[in-house]
């Protein structure tokens, strides 16, 4: 029966580039990003505004990950949904 009304949907959080500056400011990491102080929480590569692909929480910290193919997936695997 559920095929008739489509599959149930699970949410995926996203941020559009036009909102990036405001959100990163609120999270307190915009300056660090611009000063080249943030590294990918998965592979350790330097993350800039160009290669930033996701943001995720780890403990009480805000982590970022780069746009390497496996990094976004690993970030998803590592962060348990609440």
């Amino acid at each position, binding site marked *: 029966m559920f095929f*008739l009304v489509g*599959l149930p949907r699970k*949410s995926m959080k996203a*941020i559009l*580039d036009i909102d990036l500056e*405001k959100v990163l400011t609120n999270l307190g990491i915009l300056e660090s990003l611009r000063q080249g102080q943030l590294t990918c929480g998965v592979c350790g590569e330097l993350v800039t505004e160009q290669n930033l692909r996701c943001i995720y929480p780890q403990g009480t910290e805000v982590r970022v990950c780069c746009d390497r193919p496996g990094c976004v997936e690993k*970030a998803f695997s590592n962060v348990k949904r609440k």
Partner: protein
Amino acid sequence: MTSSFGDISTPIGVLPWSVTGIVIIVLLYVFTHPEKIDAWKSLLARGFSFAGDRFKRTAVSADIQSHINNFAATMNSESSGAIPYGVKIEWTKETSKEAFIQDGQVVVRMNRFTDQPKNMVYATMAYMSKGFLPHGRIYLDPMIATSADRIMTRKLLASRKLDDALQFYVSDVLEPELQADTVLRDHCAIFEKLDACGFLPAVFAREIEHLGLSKYPAVPNSSLLSETTDFVGFMEKVAEREHGEELPGGTQFLRANIKIAFALIAKTETLASMGMGPHLLWITGCWANGIDTVYVTARGNTQNTTARKIINRLEATGNIQRLAENIVTTYDPTGRPVECLIVALGKK
């Protein structure tokens, strides 16, 4: 006063049947095809994107939802439930650090619609790592799960004809990964073979998700991981088999958790000389051996017709039921399309 109300309400309250019919059809379509509505939403939002940021966001999110949810609905049907969820993009516009930590979710960065091929690739990869085999994937070797995700991501982009996204995915994501990791390359090659003959969703995904649903959330032990790895190897051998070729070791996979058999319908000449009898006997014997599911597979019109006759005969006994049925277009060595029938049979 009463009469004036009556005059006004009559034409509005009682719509002509044609208008009512159209409204019902539209509502029914919206209700039954939510993923197609997203495609229209995205198109409209793109047209109005000059009017505000809200339209820019909708243009991106509705397009991604449309492609992923359409694909998921088809694949979920083919795999009997291995992709049971669609996706809904929720935009983060402003959030405090506390709320972000509390929410505990990954936020994927997207760019405006002009960069939609990249958005599509990252959203699809993120979706597959959670949405494909949500219960079964923990019982797979991580490299096998990643390889299956890679081929499913490519399948989505190709089947939805997202050429730019597919090109970016293959050249910037898949190829560099495969060049750097030979194990991943070998496993992707296996899933490519399984997909080419229709086994990836209809057999592999179906069996692994069913296994997951029966075991989840039990911790995967080494014997279970080794069983699923062997299962992939077994399926590769079946997929590689030439038409009419005998398979060393047979076509039954009978282990502690996965108990399946492939009933491969014989070549036309064999069928002409032997008839359906040997097939009927062999399939019936599978259940006596402890097999749970027999996948009757046939390639080509003659074999498909014979397969259907065999299945009907088995169903007529009242002991066997059809669990799932798929028709997949495969290609023979000359590149000619050949329809392949895959029917899962179980004991009642």
